[in-house]
């Protein structure tokens, strides 16, 4: 299981990584591997404001559809348009080219409530 040590995680397997004042989010390697081949990713409109834990989109694998949840509250500033043509980028490079959204956090202190890499690794290892 590959875990980005610079990122923090929700128990529902979304990651959040700081990039300047903004946050880049997607799903963990553990999540993409359990989902299997990802065939579609539905992402929010840029400009939308979402609360922590609110669904920001849907990831569809060959097997099933799963909701994606905001790791922190914030306003969407960009989405990864490349996923429309090549959703398998999430399988190939979930922390890099398979990123999903970039948002401006509304409450940067929410970061502290997320799991760090070690805690997430322990949590995901139980599954």
């Amino acid at each position, binding site marked *: 299981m590959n875990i980005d040590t610079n990122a923090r995680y929700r128990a529902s397997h979304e990651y959040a990584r700081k990039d300047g004042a903004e946050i880049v989010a997607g799903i963990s390697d553990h999540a993409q591997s359990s989902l299997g*081949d990802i*065939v579609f990713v539905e992402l929010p409109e840029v400009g939308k404001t979402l609360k922590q834990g609110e669904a920001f989109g849907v990831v569809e694998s060959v097997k099933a559809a799963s909701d994606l949840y905001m790791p922190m509250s914030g306003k969407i500033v960009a989405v990864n348009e490349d996923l429309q043509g090549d959703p398998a980028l999430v*399988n190939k490079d979930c922390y890099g080219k398979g990123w999903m959204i970039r948002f401006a956090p509304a409450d940067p202190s929410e970061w502290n409530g997320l799991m760090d890499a070690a805690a997430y690794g322990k949590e995901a290892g139980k599954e």
Partner: protein
Amino acid sequence: MAPFAGYDMPISYPTGAVEEHLITRRSVGLFDIDHMGQLVVSGPGADEFVSATVSATVLDMKDWDARYSLLLDGKGLVLDDLFIYKLPGRWWIVVNASNRAADLAWFEAKAKAFPKAVTIEDSSEATYMIAIQGPRAIELMDLVSDRKVSEFPRFTSGELKIDGIPVLFGRTGYTGEDGGELFFPADSAVKLWELLLARGGKAGIETKAIGLAARDSLRFEAGMPLHGHEISPSINPIEAGFKWACGLEKDFVGKAAVEAVIAAGPARKLVGLEVTGGVPREGYEVLAADSGEKIGACVAGMFCPTAKKYAANAFVLPAYAKVGTKVQIVIHGKPKEAVVVKRPLYVPAYRR
């Protein structure tokens, strides 16, 4: 792995479902489909019995011919779909795993009431079943077999040996590719499976194990039905587009009901839908594009790796069944644009 009809079945192998689909379309896929059941019908009344029970015309079949058929109840609804092989002195009927017990009981009850002597046996436990499918499947079979299966016409079968293992081989399948299905003694399963993978590799023929998810996307693209989806005990053959599998010149169980549907016209029709903006799945509602009224529901839907499309099969009101009709599919609560398209999305290789 996932439970399926009492079997522990691989949804996909480490290769991954999409790649497994593509390998089958470009080279050779091996399918462990031992869950399928095999019934044997024999006895002096066997020919007439099979003809009277299944929907397809069978009395014109010669020894070794293989043919698709439906099994209908008295109301003309689809209990199962079958592949029927006429072998010397017996009929070999391949049934779906989840319907095997019910099919067996149904055939046995019909046999008891039949005026001539008919014996029904369940050969499922003794028989293993593997499918070998793909553009190079026949080439690989010719390499390993003591007979040239390349000389078997499509929809025929024959007996052969692979490294001493006796195999009934049908040039049939469920993927839209050339290839075949192998029936052989269950105790040789691991040996034959490994032999096919190894000989494929040695000959430079890419050969991989393919799971249930790719089996589903392959059959879906090629327009083949899966019982419980495009056909089921609540669906008649006419609305599902299977008039061609009904031998209306003869008598069979459910014929009167089928003729009644033909006369009145079906109340709904099976269509293919192409969708933008999401993945359609079983159970999703289909709406009219203009009024937003519900006009049907999806019975299967997925991403199609070769067609590179998101598509569904749905039953809709006949007025919306014409190719090119714009409709909507409700995906995660939101109506998404869809259009009725010609089925199948992938024309089987042997029909081109």
